[in-house]
C-alpha cells in the first residue's frame, strides 16, 4: 500500500488543461468519418427510392409523383446505409450532429429534381429546400 498516491494525480490535474470541452460553445471533436446527420443535394436526386427501401428504421419517405424526399430525424439512427446505396451520390453524411429536437419536430421535406428524363423542360425547378414541421 502506498501513501499520497492521489497527490500525484491532483498535481497533474492542476497543471493540465481541462479534460472536458465546453460543448455547445466550442464545437465537439469531429473526424472526417464521423456520422452526424444525413444531408441531400436536391438537384441530384432521381427519386429512385433506394434509400427508402434500405433504411432500417423507415425514416426516409420518397414521393415519386410529388418529387419530394423526406427524412424524419427522430427516427433516423444515422447508420450511413442510405448514403452508401444512393446511385447518384446526392446523399451525404454531415459530420456535425443535428440540433436537439422534440418528438414532434425533425421532419425535413425537400422538393427534388426527380428522374433525369424530365430534365429538358425544367432543369432544377423546385430545387429549393424548404423546411416543414
Amino acid at each position: 500500500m502506498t501513501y499520497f498516491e492521489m497527490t500525484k494525480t491532483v498535481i497533474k490535474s492542476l497543471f493540465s488543461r481541462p479534460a472536458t470541452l465546453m460543448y455547445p460553445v466550442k464545437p465537439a471533436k469531429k473526424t472526417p468519418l464521423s456520422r452526424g446527420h444525413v444531408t441531400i443535394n436536391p438537384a441530384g436526386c432521381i427519386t429512385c427510392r433506394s434509400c427508402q427501401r434500405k433504411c432500417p428504421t423507415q425514416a426516409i419517405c420518397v414521393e415519386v409523383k410529388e418529387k419530394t424526399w423526406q427524412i424524419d430525424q427522430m427516427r433516423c439512427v444515422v447508420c450511413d446505409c442510405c448514403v452508401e446505396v444512393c446511385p447518384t451520390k446526392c446523399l451525404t453524411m454531415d459530420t456535425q450532429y443535428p440540433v436537439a429536437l422534440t418528438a414532434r419536430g425533425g421532419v425535413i421535406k425537400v422538393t427534388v429534381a426527380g428522374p433525369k428524363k424530365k430534365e429538358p423542360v425544367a432543369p432544377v425547378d423546385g430545387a429549393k429546400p424548404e423546411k416543414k414541421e
Partner: protein
Amino acid sequence: MSKQITVPFGPQHPVLPEPIHLDLVLEDERVVDVIPSIGYVHRGLEKLVEKREYPEYIYVAERICGICSYVHSNTYAECIEHIMKIEVPERAQYLRTIWSEYSRLHSHLLWLGLFADGMGFESVFMNAWKLREHILDDMEATTGGRVIQGVCKVGGVRKDITPEKLDEMVKGLKGMEPALRDLTSVFFNDASVSHRLKGVGILQKGDAYTLGAVGPTARGSGIGIDLRQTGYAAYGKINFKPVVEQSGDCYARCAVRAKELFTSIDIIEQCVKKIPEGPIEVKVTGAPDGEYFARAEQPRGEVVHYIKGNGKRNLVRHRVRTPTFTNIPPLVTLLKGCELADVPMIVLSIDPCVGCAER
C-alpha cells in the same frame, strides 16, 4: 426467527445504471431471498427481423446493446456468413478483432468507473471515463461512431484503417498503459477498496458452473471459459490467455476485468503486427437458407445469436442469448445471505446490461 420484510430494489436506483427490479426479502439486514424481474425496456428487436432484409438488419442487431454493440453486429454477421458459406477476407477478420477488443476496452473502463462510483469513489470514476474517452476517439476516427460503430457488414467490414492510423492507435494505447496501471492499482492495492470488495458475494466454482455463469463472472470463480479461444474472427491466430481468478468474490470479478484491459491491448498490438494487406469485403448475393448458432465473447461474457433463414431476403427467426440474462441466476445465488448494504456492489459486479437482456 425475526420478521421478514420485502424491500423493492430498482428499476430506478441511485447506484444502478440498469432497469432491473429485485424484490429483496430481508430478515433484519440480511437478504434471505431475491425475486428478480425484468421487462422495463423490452423493444421487440428480434421480431423486427421478419420486417427487415438481412443486410439491413445488422444495424438493428447492433443496437441491441449500447455498450457491447460491436460484438453483436460481428456475431450476427458471422452467423449469416456461416449459413451462406461466405469466406471473409483475412484483413476484415483482423479489423473485426481490433474493433472487438476496442469495444472490450471501452466497456471495461466504463464498468470500472461505474463500479468505483457505486462504492463512492468518484474521482476514480472520473479518471476511468477520461481514459475511456481516448478509446472512443480512436473508435470514432476509424469507424465514424463513438459507441455504435456500424462498421461490420455481412461479408466483411465497411471501413478500412490505414497502416499509419494502426501504428498511431497502438502508440496511443501504449502511451495509455501507465495511466491504466495507475487506475487499476487503485482496485488492486487500495485498502478501502479491498475492504469493500474482498469476501463480498462469493460465487463458488461449482455454483458458477451449474448455474451457467459466463464471462468475467465465471472467470472470477476460477472457470477458464473464454469464447475468444474458439478462434472466431482472427482470434485463432492470436496468442493470449484468459484471465482467471480463483476467489469468486466481487474483488476477483473486478480484478478479472482490470487485467483484461491489458490483455486487450496486447491482442490489438499482435493484430496490428500480423494484419495482412488485401480486400476488406466480398460481394454477397442471395439469401441465407438454413440455421446456425454463432457464439462470441462479449465484454460481459458469452453471447449466442441464432438465425434461421428460408432462402428469402427476410429471415424467419433471430434469437439472442445475452450474457446478462445468463448471469441473473448466479446473481440470485450471490445475493442470498448477503447484507443489504452489499446488494448494489454485488449487482454491479456481474456488470448487468438489462437493455441487452431484454432486447
